[in-house]
């Protein structure tokens, strides 16, 4: 089989439109997941069992089932119920594969981020919390001023990992008709029958996106931890 680099050049603009959708999905679900993860993660690290139980179940479900299954449950599963199909509030969103992908990906990544956050919260040195208690801070003050800022710094490398996993997970959105990078690549292959060339080009796009993400996170990490730079 011969390698045809011309087809990569010809189809690259189409691939790029797919890449834009991929970045959009990852960025928005990353933010949505983060917003969901804070209450879940904080509740999950509570010492009270009844506060901990619900987030535990949530995390157990979303970490224990494949993202593909969750996508299908949201996209094909919910639409089986006629009450949802006739709901004027929900159906305009659930009808749209874009929203279904965002919902499934956000809820999935929220479970992982919540677990990262719990680990980070529990890794905050005990002495710092004791010092905060000693100067008379209230519980919410400790959470806002000590626990969360420290946990964010501790958890950031693990979070950047999770975002890159979501980048790769976003390829599954192609199964619910979205023409993101993988979906676009598969559609182009369906017309050209050149999987090696097109998947290579798509792979290069993913690499470029993840490279930019890694650099951005490194930058944020450096800014947040600038007080530690000289101590190292």
């Amino acid at each position, binding site marked *: 089989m011969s390698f045809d680099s011309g087809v990569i050049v010809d189809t690259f603009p189409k691939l790029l439109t797919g890449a834009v959708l991929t970045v959009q999905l990852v960025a928005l679900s990353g933010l949505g997941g983060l917003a969901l993860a804070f209450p879940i993660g904080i509740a999950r690290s509570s010492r009270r069992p009844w506060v901990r139980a619900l987030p535990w179940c949530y995390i157990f479900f979303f970490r224990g089932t494949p993202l593909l299954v969750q996508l299908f449950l949201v996209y*094909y599963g919910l*639409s089986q119920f006629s009450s949802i199909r006739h709901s004027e509030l929900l159906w305009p969103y659930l*009808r749209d594969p874009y929203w279904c992908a965002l919902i499934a990906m956000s809820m999935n990544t929220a479970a992982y981020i919540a677990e990262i956050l719990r680990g980070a919260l529990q890794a905050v040195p005990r002495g710092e919390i004791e010092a905060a208690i000693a100067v008379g801070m209230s519980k919410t003050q400790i959470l806002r001023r000590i626990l969360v800022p420290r946990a964010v710094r501790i958890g950031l490398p693990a979070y950047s990992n999770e975002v890159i996993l979501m980048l790769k997970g976003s390829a599954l959105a192609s199964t619910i*008709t979205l023409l993101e990078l993988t979906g676009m690549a*598969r*559609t182009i*292959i*369906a017309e050209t*029958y050149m*999987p090696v060339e097109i998947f290579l080009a798509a792979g290069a796009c993913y690499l470029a996106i993840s490279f930019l993400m890694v650099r951005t996170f490194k930058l944020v990490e450096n800014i947040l931890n600038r007080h530690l730079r000289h101590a190292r």
Partner: protein
Amino acid sequence: MRFKSLLIAAAFATAGLCGQAFAAQKVRIGTEGAYPPFNQVDSKGNITGFDVDIAKALCAAAKLDCTIVTQDWDGIIPALNARKFDAIAASMSITEARKKAVDFTDPYYTNKLQFVAPKTSTFSPDQLKGKVLGAQRATIAGTWLEQHAKGAQIKLYDTQENAYLDLAAGRLDAILADKFVNYAWLKSDAGKDFEFKGKPVFNNDKIAIAVRKGDTSLREKLNAALKVILADGTYKKINEKYFPFSIY
């Protein structure tokens, strides 16, 4: 070193020759397994359907030792060319674009493309603008929509079954697909609220088995076998198992 590899090559060549002389030629046939009633996987995991029955009958007539394997539809031609299997029996339409990638046998049935929409809908194939239309990815239905349905939103699905699910969910105004596949779905429970809309938009859809480019020996064997099963009534028997009318 060179002598050793020569010996190995000789051993392989002998084995190959002997194998050909004593056992029937082994042929792997790829199908999709998600395109009822032409090819599907039943609850026991067996691959069944019209395509599969025809493939088995052809193999019997040509005295080939065949195994059927499944492969996702949109990767089925690349997989054939990557030698994952030797022929595709998966209701594949002969098209000019595909002829550049594979060779086709003589057609074993003829299909049409026709729209399906809800019974309550006023959908007509003459007015596609602004409609949401579905088809399976990498099919002639998908290509037809891209060429003819200007101004419509086209959604492409991995499998035909997923397209039907979305039509039933109300995400699509209509589906364009092979008439006989639609026919089978409309007869099923899931399709009871839907019907054909308008006349077929494409009539002369010739379906054939695909082999790798240049694999003339396999193609000729299958062509000869097709003539045999058409003549001895095997084809008719298989046809009647699935449709009350001839689809040849």
